[in-house]
């Protein structure tokens, strides 16, 4: 179902043209949540990180769970967008920008957590390698420094991956805007005019970026997983962590993408652009990732159980039968038992079905991060030092967690108001009629036009 360029422009630029009251109210709500979370963080800086629930020996809790969760979620966009671009999958065109936006915002939110969880966040800049007066540099043997480099590289890559294809769309909005908005969009579009040289360079740059960003994305979550795997903690010190985390990241990312697309489809009336086939294809990918996730979890737990090492088995049974088992089985339900039938049975793989499965996956993956961190820290090697009272998050941690979800929604809502959430030029480019047909159709028109001109000239003489 082909649409003319004008129709596409109209449909995809409509969200930029006005805001309804419902939008304003919902946005205000999320802004309030973010402000409350900001207050909670200020309270934490003022009084000391002890206002959070973390304790000895569970030194990492909600904040690091959120950190890993958001960085993982960010693997949706750029990875999916880059892989689909390299595979020339045509159905990716309406999906790419939605996905890339998730990446950039999720990364930014995730990257805030290494600062939020610090005991002394005001000196966080010591992580940056700069020549200090004391002549001391950061310790790059630490996986946290690898995080620093990897996340910055990935953020840089994702931002450019998002911004470069936005340039022609900024130009589009510039052409339609008036007054102050026109000035802003003119500046943002960098004076783009759409010459073949510019298009060719842009597409080549996107292709190079797609090739470059995939290994970076894989390395980022591997490095985040090594924050855990490099420490001699029972059930952390496992070689499977890097691929396990990358798989989990892509899994949660695709789920977030499906949810975001479903919401956009509904609220921005993009039913003719985000089609059921898109959700079906993403749903199939989600199914594959779910199976892959089960494979990794099963491999890890089987080898731990078979090895029967006492420290590891303590943590193993704690999650499977002990105090963490309700969370553990909820996670298994959300990540596998719920999504598998929905996504495997074609009849159930509707948009609603995919969204239900995705919501389950997002919850399940958050729980998975929590269950990797807290049970292992609760039961380390010396039983006298086990966490006798369980780790309980305080209002500070819960508020900040809620604040990050609100921030994500808020940023997404703001983005979709100022920039077309579907890449307009890519969508148009995907709708090209076959050249030969075009020529044939136009040749008729040409002959008619030539005849008309001759007739008018003959008439004029």
């Amino acid at each position, binding site marked *: 179902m082909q649409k003319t360029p004008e129709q596409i422009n109209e449909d995809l630029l409509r969200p930029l043209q006005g805001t309804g009251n419902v939008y304003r109210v919902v946005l205000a709500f999320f802004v309030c949540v973010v402000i409350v979370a900001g207050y909670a963080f200020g309270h934490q800086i003022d009084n000391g990180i002890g206002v959070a629930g973390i304790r*000895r020996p569970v030194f*990492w809790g909600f904040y690091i769970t959120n950190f890993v969760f958001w960085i993982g979620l960010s693997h949706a966009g750029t990875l999916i967008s880059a892989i689909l671009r390299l595979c020339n999958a045509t159905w990716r065109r309406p999906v790419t920008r939605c996905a890339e936006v998730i990446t950039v915002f999720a990364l930014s939110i995730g990257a805030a957590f290494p600062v939020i969880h610090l*005991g*002394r966040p005001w000196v966080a800049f010591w992580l940056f390698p700069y020549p200090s007066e004391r002549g001391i540099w950061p310790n790059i043997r630490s996986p946290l420094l690898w995080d620093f480099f990897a996340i910055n590289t990935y953020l840089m890559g994702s931002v450019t991956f998002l911004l470069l294809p936005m340039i022609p769309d900024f130009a589009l909005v510039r052409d339609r805007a008036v007054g102050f908005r026109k000035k802003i969009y003119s500046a943002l579009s960098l004076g783009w005019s759409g010459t073949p040289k510019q298009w060719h360079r842009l597409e080549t740059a996107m292709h190079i970026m797609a090739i470059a960003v995939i290994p970076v994305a894989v390395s980022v979550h591997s490095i985040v997983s090594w924050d855990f795997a490099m420490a*001699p903690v029972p059930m952390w010190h496992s070689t499977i962590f890097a691929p396990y985390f990358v798989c989990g990241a892509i899994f949660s990312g695709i789920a977030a993408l499906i949810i975001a697309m479903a919401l956009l489809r509904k609220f921005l009336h993009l039913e003719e652009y985000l089609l059921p086939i898109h959700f079906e294809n993403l749903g199939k990918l989600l199914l594959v990732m779910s199976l892959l996730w089960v494979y990794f979890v099963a491999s890890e737990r089987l080898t731990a159980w078979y090895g029967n090492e006492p420290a590891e088995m303590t943590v193993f049974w704690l999650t499977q039968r002990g105090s963490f088992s309700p969370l553990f089985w909820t996670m298994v339900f959300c990540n596998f038992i719920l999504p598998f039938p929905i996504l495997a049975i074609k009849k159930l793989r509707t948009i609603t079905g995919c969204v239900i499965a995705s919501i389950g996956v997002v919850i399940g993956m958050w729980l998975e991060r929590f269950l990797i961190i807290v049970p292992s820290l609760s039961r*380390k090697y010396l039983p*006298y030092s086990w966490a006798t*009272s369980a780790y309980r998050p305080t209002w500070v941690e819960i508020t900040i967690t809620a604040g990050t979800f609100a921030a994500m929604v808020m940023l997404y809502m703001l983005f979709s108001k100022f920039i077309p959430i579907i890449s307009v030029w890519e969508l148009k480019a995907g709708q090209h009629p076959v050249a030969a047909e075009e020529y044939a159709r136009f040749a008729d028109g040409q002959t008619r036009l030539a005849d008309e001109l001759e007739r008018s000239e003959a008439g004029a003489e």
Partner: protein
Amino acid sequence: MARQWGMVIDLDRCTGCEACVVACHAENNIDTVGEDQAARGRAKHWIRVERYYEGEYPDIKAKFMPVLCQQCAAAPCEPVCPTFASYHTAEGLNGQIYNRCIGTRYCANACPYTVRFFNWFNPVWDEPLNLQFNPDVSIRSVGMMEKCTFCVQRIKAAEIQAEAEKRPLKDGEFAPACVQTCAPKAMVFGDLNDPTSEVARLARSNRATKLLEETGARPQVTYLKRGSWNGAENAENA
């Protein structure tokens, strides 16, 4: 040869009196966090006496093991600190630089012995304990990691004194607070690289063992296994 500070703890002599814990608090300006915070697992005891019960009433046995920073030669807490706040000194100690710590708490997670403690709040001393500070030890503020330093302030003071007097350090000339306080003399401190020192001799004992050696951290604290009360070699009581 460079010094390698080490300790030997004789588990047969330890009575579990915890005088070492109190002495450490006094020497190193460690605050008591209060009942509420302690219940939430935030108490700080640079040396603690781990107590394990065995058996059922009335045949209960209690086993005591003082656990402190093992000053591991291949310490897992050192490479994971992003700001070099935890590093290995030339004399074999695991140094903790308080004002370099940004509080990521990675070192505490990496330590298999859980001997690292975090300042969740700014420390508060009830009166009159606030008059009792040791001027040689800095007060740690919120957001910093701290742990046993083998009383490095005493080591440094003794070394400076010996150098000023142009003589070598004698074995047993000084000791960390816990070693000094231990009534049954269960703890011995000294230079493991000096083969004539008491600690090196005891570390070669046939009762010598190390805690969690399988983690590969190469701890410098040696524990001497328990014998039975009547001197018979009884593996059951080890």
